[in-house]
Each structure stands twice: as structure tokens, then as C-alpha cells.
């Protein structure tokens, strides 16, 4: 990274006001309004355009585009009107929102509504006849410190300068994330598996597997202003009838305390730090993080934040924890050590402590190597009746080894275009 270059760029931007080229003089013409487009710089509490010129008496169409996550407006004022306006906004109290923070005071030339994030508005007005500098500000409380500009009214026949754009104090800083080369489809190798704690998909596991989780329910949207649930048009899933009702936010299938491990394209698994057990194994890919991290850096948080499985499942846990027949109580995850690049998980159930490794065993099976840390051995690995995938349980030194044979399932679905579209805006 060349810092001297970037500081030179900074200098150039700051000098822009002096370098703007005068545009051709524009005559006031009622048929052709002067068009001005002002953008809000996202997250910066600034207008991108900080100065523009109009001819006295001209018709002006001003477009305000708010691509920021906060609401903003634009209020254009007569030259001396700002102190009274600010004072009036400060006394609007909680009603300010309803009035778009535009108080009834003299000296307002034009004003937009309070624009919600990612919306725009056109307003038309006639430029004042008096030449001078007309400030414009966002009157959302506090924003006028930095969110301001000036409209210069010029006499007819005077050349209009091109609009002045603010550097915003943001763009000069390098976008370190976009330049990072961070991959959203990480992969490990058999020699150096990739370990990642993340929200993981729940591919529809037997609910009995989540014995030590809480039971999450759908929620409803809530409006803090009224302290009531948000009421909207809701479709009854059974009848298809649309009626008014609370807007439901469905609970989704995810694993909160997951540890996802990948040994390369051919072997991946999710081990859960809440249940302290292997949840599922898959082959043919790992996780596509776009649906958690967003499609590209800085593209905003996606609506979904569970990564997508790539490949096909070959094992899913079912029934209660296999060790539970031996010991009572919730499992406690104690962490893991990396042993030759492979994580060995450690957990406690009751008073007994275990270490557990998950290892591929050829192309069609895998092993759990479980090492008790106390002299007493568990009497048996309790296999649920439907868990026919377990082919053998044998002792090997301090450990006992559970061999499992793949039961391949159809490939996981590819991403839907609709899901991808969701990730574009927060």
C-alpha cells in the first residue's frame, strides 16, 4: 500500500472547490427545470453535494437519494433562517418524527420529507429571486452539524459552477475489507483441516438431538413506539386467507454453538458445543458463507445468517446423546486442542470427562475416537435403534472407536436466486 500516493489523492480532493469548471449559463426556463441530484453518503451524516448553483427565479427539481441506514431529509433555507429553524426543531420533541422534523417557521424555501433508508424523493421549487447563499441541512436531530450544503442563487446570465461534491471524509480511507481477498467458501485439507465456529445449518435433524437446547418459538414484529406488536396483512398458511394480524418472524433451522470442520472437498462435519456431540457429516464441499457474511464485503448483512451446506449429507445424528444412558445431566463443553491439525473436543457429562475426535475413514465412512479421562470405561456406546449407520464399537488403547458407514443423501439444494437477491441490502 502506497501511503504517499493516498495522501496526494487526499490533497487533490480537498482542492476540488478551486478547480471546478464553470458550466454554461442557464436561462430560467419554465419548461426545462434545472435538475439537481443530491445523494446522502451512507453512514457519514453528509450530503455528497455540498454546493450547487441555480439561476434566480429558475424552476428547480431536486432529487434527494437516501442510501444510508438512517432517515434523512433536506431543508433548504433563506440565508439567515438557520438559527430559528434549529431552535424550532429542538422544541419539536417526540412529535418531530410525524412532522418530518420540518417545523412551521418562516424562511424555509423547500423541504423533502424525512426519507427512510434506501428511498428517494423529488421536490420542485422556484429558486428565490434574491441572489445569495441559501444553506440546506438535514434537520434530523444532530445531523445538521455535518449534514449541510449551500445553494448559491446567481443572477440571470451569470455562469453556474458545477456542483461541488464533498469527499465526505470517508472515501479517502482505503477499503481494507474489499481488498482483503477473504474467501466466503473456505476449505481445509486432509493434512490441515479448516475449523470454524459459526452458526451452522440444521438440515432438519431429529429434535431429540437438541435435548439440551431451549425450544425457540416464532416471534412477532414489535413496534417500540406504540409498545405493541406490528399488525399487517398475514396469510393463513392453512386456508390461504389474507387477514390482519401480528407480523410473525419465523424461527429458523440453525445451530448456534456449532463447530464446523472441513478436511477438504471430501469430508466435513458439524460438532455441536451445546450438545457436545457430532451432529452431521457431509461430503462434496463445505459451507457457502454468503448467506451469513453477505455476498461480498461491505454488501450489508444478509437477511439470512445461516451458511449453506454444499455437497451431500452422509450422516445425521438422531436420538438422545449416546453417552446419556450412562450419565445424567447436561454436557459441558470444555474446549478443544489441536492435535496434528485435527481438533480433539473435550467435554464433561456429570462427573465424567471425555475427549472426542472425528476422523474420515476412507471414502465411505468415518470414525469417532472417544477417550474417557477417568479409569472407569462406559459400559457401552448406546446406539439408538434407528442408528444402523454404526458398524462397530471397539477399544483401542485408552480410547474406544465408533465406526460409522456413510448413508449418502441427495445433494443439498443450490442457492435460489431469491436468496441471493436478499443479500444485497441490509
Amino acid at each position, binding site marked *: 500500500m502506497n501511503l504517499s500516493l493516498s495522501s496526494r489523492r487526499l490533497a487533490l480532493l480537498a482542492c476540488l472547490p478551486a478547480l471546478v469548471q464553470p458550466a454554461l449559463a442557464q436561462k430560467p426556463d419554465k419548461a426545462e427545470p434545472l435538475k439537481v441530484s443530491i445523494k446522502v453518503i451512507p453512514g457519514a451524516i453528509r450530503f455528497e453535494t455540498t454546493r450547487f448553483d441555480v439561476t434566480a427565479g429558475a424552476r428547480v427539481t431536486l432529487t434527494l437519494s437516501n442510501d444510508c441506514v438512517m432517515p434523512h431529509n433536506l431543508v433548504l433555507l433563506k440565508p439567515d433562517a438557520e438559527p430559528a429553524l434549529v431552535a424550532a426543531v429542538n422544541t419539536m420533541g417526540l412529535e418531530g418524527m410525524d412532522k418530518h422534523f420540518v417545523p412551521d417557521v418562516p424562511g424555509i424555501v423547500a423541504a423533502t420529507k424525512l426519507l427512510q433508508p434506501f428511498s428517494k424523493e423529488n421536490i420542485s421549487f422556484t429558486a428565490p429571486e434574491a441572489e445569495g447563499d441559501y444553506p440546506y441541512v438535514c434537520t434530523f436531530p444532530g445531523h445538521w*452539524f*455535518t449534514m449541510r450544503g449551500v445553494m448559491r442563487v446567481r443572477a440571470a446570465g451569470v455562469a453556474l459552477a458545477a456542483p461541488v461534491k464533498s469527499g465526505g471524509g470517508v472515501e479517502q480511507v482505503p477499503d481494507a475489507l474489499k481488498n482483503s481477498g477473504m474467501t466466503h467458501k473456505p476449505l481445509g485439507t486432509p493434512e490441515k483441516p479448516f475449523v470454524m465456529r459459526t452458526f451452522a445449518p440444521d438440515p432438519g435433524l431429529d429434535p431429540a438431538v437438541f435435548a439440551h437446547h431451549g425450544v425457540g418459538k416464532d416471534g412477532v414484529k414489535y413496534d417500540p413506539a406504540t409498545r405493541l406488536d406490528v399488525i399487517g396483512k398475514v396469510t393463513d398458511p392453512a386456508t390461504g386467507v389474507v387477514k390482519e394480524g401480528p407480523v410473525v418472524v419465523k424461527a429458523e433451522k440453525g445451530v448456534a*454453538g456449532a463447530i464446523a470442520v472441513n478436511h477438504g472437498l471430501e469430508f466435513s462435519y458439524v460438532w455441536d458445543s451445546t450438545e457436545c456431540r457430532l451432529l452431521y457429516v457431509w461430503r462434496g464441499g463445505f459451507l457457502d458463507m454468503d448467506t451469513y457474511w453477505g455476498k461480498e464485503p461491505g454488501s450489508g448483512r444478509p437477511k439470512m445468517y445461516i451458511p449453506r451446506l454444499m455437497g451431500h449429507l452422509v450422516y445425521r445424528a438422531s436420538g438422545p446423546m449416546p453417552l446419556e444412558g450412562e450419565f445424567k445431566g447436561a454436557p459441558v463443553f470444555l474446549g478443544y486442542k489441536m492435535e496434528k491439525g485435527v481438533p480433539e473436543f473435550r467435554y464433561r457429562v456429570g462427573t465424567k470427562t471425555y475427549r472426542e475426535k472425528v476422523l474420515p475413514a476412507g471414502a465411505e465412512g468415518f470414525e469417532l475416537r472417544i477417550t474417557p479421562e477417568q479409569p472407569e470405561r462406559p459400559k457401552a456406546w448406546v446406539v439408538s435403534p434407528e442408528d444402523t449407520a454404526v458398524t462397530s464399537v471397539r477399544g483401542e488403547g485408552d480410547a474406544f472407536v465408533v465406526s460409522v458407514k456413510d448413508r449418502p443423501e441427495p445433494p443439498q439444494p443450490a442457492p435460489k436466486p431469491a436468496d441471493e437477491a436478499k443479500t444485497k441490502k441490509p
Partner: protein
Amino acid sequence: MFSQPFLFVKTSNALRHPLCAALALAAALPPAQAQTGAAPQKPSYQVEEIPVPKGVAPEIGGLGFTPSGKLVVLTRRSGILTALPTPDATHMQWTRFSDQSLHNANGLFVISDREMLVSQMPELTRVLDNDGDGIADEYRTEASFNLSGAYHEVTAGPVPDGKDGFFIALNTASHSGFTFEHTRGLFSEVSRRGRNFASVQHRGWVMHWDPKTGLTPWAKGFRSPNGIQTGPDGSVWVTDNQGDFRTTNPLYHVEQGLFYGHPSSLVWDPAYVKADPKRDPLKQPMAELDAMRAPAAVLFPYGFSRSPAEPLFDTTNGKFGPFKGQMLVADAAAPRIIRVMLEKVDGVMQGACVDFYSHNGLRNGSNRMVFSPEGTELYVGQTMREWAGAMEGLQRIKFNGGSIFEILSMHLTRDGFELEFTQPVDAGVGEKPEAFATESYWYEYSSNYGGPESQSEKVRVSSVQWSADRRKVRLVYPKLQAQKVIRLNLTGFTSGAQPLGHAMVAYTINRLAN
């Protein structure tokens, strides 16, 4: 009022000089400087960009230094990196201390080159390099955090309690997201409601952890406490974010057992539930909640502080400028760091805030900060991934010395304020009461998602009395009231023609001085 033409600096030849141009971009540059055209001094504080290796998402969740002087950078999804700082920030030799296994890691406490405590979504983890090869080989779980499965349930801390323990703050979930069908921890349907909510235990709490007692709930009523710090005296400080039940961004002096105003966490308070098992905090009258809550030490003017993150006390003993012992607060949604001047009045912490550094190369999204061991540099890590725009990266602010003209302190007196400046204020400036433009306002406690300043009024200064050395001024006000923020704007103040760096200061009065 605040009608300075912040952005409209007259362009002169002098401004074509890169340094001067950088000054011209200053957000709060008083007009005096542009008019006088005074020769620019080297800026006292300068921002440098610190590149991290390719393939690392530079989303900084924690910063620290090892006792041997290595910078430790915790990222939210690319693990932990270390490097010995070099004078040329572009040539640091980075080592990956951990793999990329940490889930949205957002808090770091460095114990040694081989041992660090990290908070990540599901737990507090001790990351250890047992064999001393410089790469962590053990991730030991020290405490488990409950998760509903919402993206917003992030952590802040651990910060040391001065003994063997640590404090950690746990965010609530946001209604912009969903929960999972199976939650980590017990699920409460009552507290699933809400704009920001605490459907699993201890979301919205500050927790205490130590190896003997484990994890215990310590204080409640938080919404999005993305900044926690302990002071040199052991005091606990938390910043929270404007939103529902948060009219503006607050800084809290947190004391054990107290409630800090966001109600969702209350369902996980056994005493609250025991008093009335059917009580739903979201339905409780605002007046009752208001009576229960502890005040903020400082209410940051919104727009000035957008999304406060980590607070950090200046423990450099003057190596980083004249603000010894004061607090700096990172802002994760504005290119700004705020300075806080605290004092205890009638047994309650309160104080003033002023802009410390904004724009001029500082990236938006500052989340975590740490001073270099020498104290002459402030490392600043940014991340605001969920929001629009580029707000991720690592920078440092170097202190170059030089002349700094700022408000050094603001102290509440029996009948007004005493302001101290870092340099003598020019004679003829600030002689009349009108020079101290003052307004007072308050933020009403409301369930609304943020809100405006209310009860605003201009306040008249009745007398001005300067010290002989012109460094201090006593302002007398006819009447001051508690539960007010007093905002002063010292436009046009100069010291040897140098304009006051940041002219706006806001003091939160919880208690009047006796």
C-alpha cells in the same frame, strides 16, 4: 447554535499543500483558521493505515499488546494475528496466532505471548499456545453464553476487574433477525417480544467471570453494549447504542445489581420475577421503569456520537497528549473518537464530552482501541460489517507533540462551570457572557427507537471570570438544573491566533454540586 460553515473553507494557495488540505477537511474547523491563513503546523495527531495480510478480513474485534511488545489483533472471522509494531506501518511482519475458528470474536484480553482471553458469540475462550511455537493449539472454554441464534448477540470484553476476574457485556438480539428453533439456553416467549429482545438468559446483561465462581450476572438493562472498560480505579464503564429505550447514545458507570433502562433483560432477573411472576417488562409503565433505572454518566449528543464502541482511559501519563486520565470512546458508525471528561458530583459520576479526532483519514467504524506500550500511539480497529459501506480496517493515530488548543476539563461548580484550556486563551476573546453560547436540553426516557433533544432552551451566562493566566474561566449561570445536558459552543476562541480545535462541549448534569 451550530451554524458554523463546517465544510465551506475558502480555498487558498496554502490549501494546495497536502497537510493543509488535510486540515481543510476537518469536520469542525472553525472559520477563523481559513480566514487568517495561519501557517499550518504539523498536525498533533496523524492517522496511519496498517495493512493486514491478504486473506484476512480486517474486522477488528479486539486489540492488545503482549508484555513483550507484540501487537495482538483479534478479528471477527479471521482469527488472531500478531506483529511487532514497526515505524513503517506497511511493513509489519504478521503471524497468525490462531486459526480462523473464532465465531464473531469481539473482545480480547492479552495475558502473554502464549495466552489470551477472547469472547466470541458462544463463549469466553482461553486461547493457548502450549508448545510455544507461536501458534495456538488449545481453545479452552471458560464460560458459555446463551444464544437465541440472532446475529446481534455479540459480546464486548473481557476487561479485567483488577483481581482475578473479568467483565463481559452481552448484546440483546434485534428484531431485524430471527431466532433458531433450538436455542442455546432456555427460551422465554415473554422476552422474545420487543424491538431488541433477550429471549435467552442474560442477553442485555453485564456478566462477571472469574475462575473460582464462574459466570455470574452483574448488572442489567443493556441494549447493545458494544463497549466495556474498567478504569484504573476498578470502576466499570459501558457504552450503549441509541435505539429502543435509548433516546441517545449513553455512557454508563455500571454498578453491581443496577438496572440501566432497557427492559428486555429483566425477565432474567430472579428478583424482578419473584416480585411478580406475571410481570412483563415490555408492558410495565414507563414511569415505573424510569424509577428503577440508573442514570447515564454521559449522554452523547446524537450525530456527534453515532454508535459508541470501546471506551479507553488515557493511561499514557502525557505521552499521548495533554488528556491524562481522561476517556476516549471509539465510534463504530462515524469517523470519530470522542473524549470524555468525568467527575464525581454528589456521589454520582457525570461529565462532559468533546470531539477528540474526526475525519482526516480516520475510518468510519472504530470498534476497539489500545495504546502502544510507549503510549505515543493509539491503535484503532474498525468493523461495522452489518451496515453499509467500508468500515473495516486497522489504523493507528500517532501523537506528534506540537501545540494543542483544546478544552482540557469542564467542572461543575455550585453556580456554573469552570472550564480549563490546554493553552491560555487570547485576551479579548470570551470576555462577554454572550461568547459562551449555551443551551440546555434533555433526552426523555422513551420506548421509541431513538429520539430528539427535548426541553431545549438557550441559557444565559450571567458572569465570566478568567484566571490571571487565561487558562481557566468560571462561568456563572442564574440557574442550573439537574437532569439537563448543557452544551456550549465556543466559536471564535483562539490562543495565539490558533483556533480552538473542538469548540462544542456537552456536559450531562445528573446531580448539582453542593
